[in-house]
């Protein structure tokens, strides 16, 4: 990975979790490792998607319209490890017509957790069910997020349980707002 991304100025990840992982590469290798310097360099130029738009491109106003009630899933790794908290909310609230509704207990993990979700399916599903109940309580028509793993898990749970809000990645939502074309 260090080699693949070497020639680029910036690396953008769709999930805060991925950004956090790369940002912590140095500790994975150990500071004395021969690749430590390269790891540090990659960490410095790796950004989560919304953080890249807001902090690197300096763009905070998103084009288009999205006249829907949207709630935001703040993924744990994105917020706590990659420290991306306000950027996605800033982008969402800049979109015309979009009504952003807070998700109760937003800081609670949704229960995805990588291999955790299949190693401990009962616990993972129970955590997810609580999250879904909070999502339903907002009466949002769209659940948006910036972590593909969480969204996969929540979409799966919501879809299985019956009528549910659409689950969109922030990038999909921005695209839909800008182009007016539904992504899925």
């Amino acid at each position: 990975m260090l080699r693949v991304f070497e020639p680029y100025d910036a690396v953008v990840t769709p999930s805060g979790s991925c950004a956090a992982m790369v940002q912590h590469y140095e500790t994975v290798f150990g500071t004395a490792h021969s690749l430590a310097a390269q790891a540090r360099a990659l960490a410095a130029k790796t950004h989560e998607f919304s953080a890249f738009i807001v902090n690197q491109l300096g763009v905070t106003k998103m084009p288009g319209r999205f006249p829907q009630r949207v709630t935001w899933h703040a993924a744990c790794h994105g917020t706590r490890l990659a420290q991306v908290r306000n950027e996605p909310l800033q982008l969402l609230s800049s979109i015309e017509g979009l009504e952003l509704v807070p998700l109760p207990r937003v800081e609670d993990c949704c229960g995805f957790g990588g291999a955790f979700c299949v190693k401990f399916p009962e616990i993972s599903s129970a955590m997810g069910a609580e999250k879904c109940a909070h999502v339903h309580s907002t009466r949002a028509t769209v659940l948006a997020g910036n972590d593909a793993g969480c969204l996969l898990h929540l979409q799966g749970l919501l879809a299985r349980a019956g009528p549910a809000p659409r689950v969109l990645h922030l990038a999909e939502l921005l695209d839909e707002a800008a182009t007016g074309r539904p992504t899925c």
Partner: protein
Amino acid sequence: MLSPQGHFAERAKEAVADAHLRAAVRRTVDRLRDLRRTTEANDSAMPLRREKARLVREHSVAALPHLLEQFTQACRRNGTVVHRAADAAEACGIALSLLRTHAARRVVKSKSMVTEEIGLNEALERDGIEVTETDLGEWIIQLAGERPSHIILPAIHKTRHDVQRLFERESGTTLSPDTARLCAHARIRLREKFLQADAGISGANFAVASTGSIALFTNEGNGRLVTTLPRVHIAFMGMERVVADLDALASMAEVLPRSATGQKLTSYCTVITGPRGPGELDGPEHLHVIIVDNGRSAVWRDPEFRDVLRCIRCAACLNVCPVYAQVGGHSYGGTYPGPIGAVLTPLLRPEQRSATELAEASTLCAACTEACPVGIPLHDMLVRLRRREQALHPHRVQRLMLRVAMRFARSAKAGALPALLRAASHGGTAIVLRKLVPALDHWQRTRALPPAPAQTFRALWPQLAQEAMNEH
């Protein structure tokens, strides 16, 4: 420490299926974390208090051998007798021989996690000593013959009706399930025990090296009674409890109650320095402190995990842990539940193989690390424990699967992913696949598979990259 029966996964599965338990745990953790957050939000000095507490604990742990020596010497000056116990058996043995020396047959106890850890009650009862837990929650648990399910609220899984039945059975009287009446009953019954007791056993939230003091934080006042009425007081402390001086203790007092229950200070905070003085009318004539190692030295010598000894047992990590909220304390199998238990139990009991599974039982959401007032990187430690476990006992199947997945992702065949996804979603192939891949089965029991895209991102990328170039 009681050895867990079976595995975390099995116990957790049962716990998740218990709606009453889950509701009780959820109510408890939500309440405690909301109390903590409200207090923290209204206190602009909180970040400073936490930072100071972190520094105090960091220093305490770094200087641990020195501070313990200093504590022991200070105790010698004030008349406290200090004992060191290498393990649970030795700690229980010291207590037993002290009780024999003082002809103590009836013991009252205030809440102490370390005595749970060493299985003290069982050891004393085997010797015919009557042990009464006097923290209301602990007494309820003792009467039920169970173990605590939360560090600071041990009986959260019991309803008032459960408590009514337990108290009725113990006293042979008929009681109302009204909380105030149940508490009044407990006051009378336990007051008798206090007045009859020959010895009091407590834990120690902290020990102060420079003065040879121990500090107890309680809300009910049972900690005071245990250290006031019986003629002998034996305090147990994990060897990491020590801080340098009274100022360091003050820093602890600023964060422990706030982090535990959102209180600025517990109803009672006592600093005990030696047995009763000349002319005093109450307080123990003899004060013994038993410093328990029980695996802690090994943790201290381990640079990857030494910081876990900073823990002040506030349970803030339990109250924010999404896994604990679903499975409750008993699932963890050890004395210490939640994130701190998942780290501490396998470290203190490396021989207990099933404890290593606890590190897996986390989504690594890091809520614990964020909540910890003394800056223990709990989620990082869970990763380190997983890595260590992999090095010691490589999970071959998992590794093989990862290798296959990596090869697949790198190969041109990755383009077939949407087709695979479609096959896994419907029809006969789906059933066969689910049988072959347990993970897929676990996924699909409660979750739908995502709709398959027409093309993979990798297949789209050349075209997308071209479009982007053209726009420039």
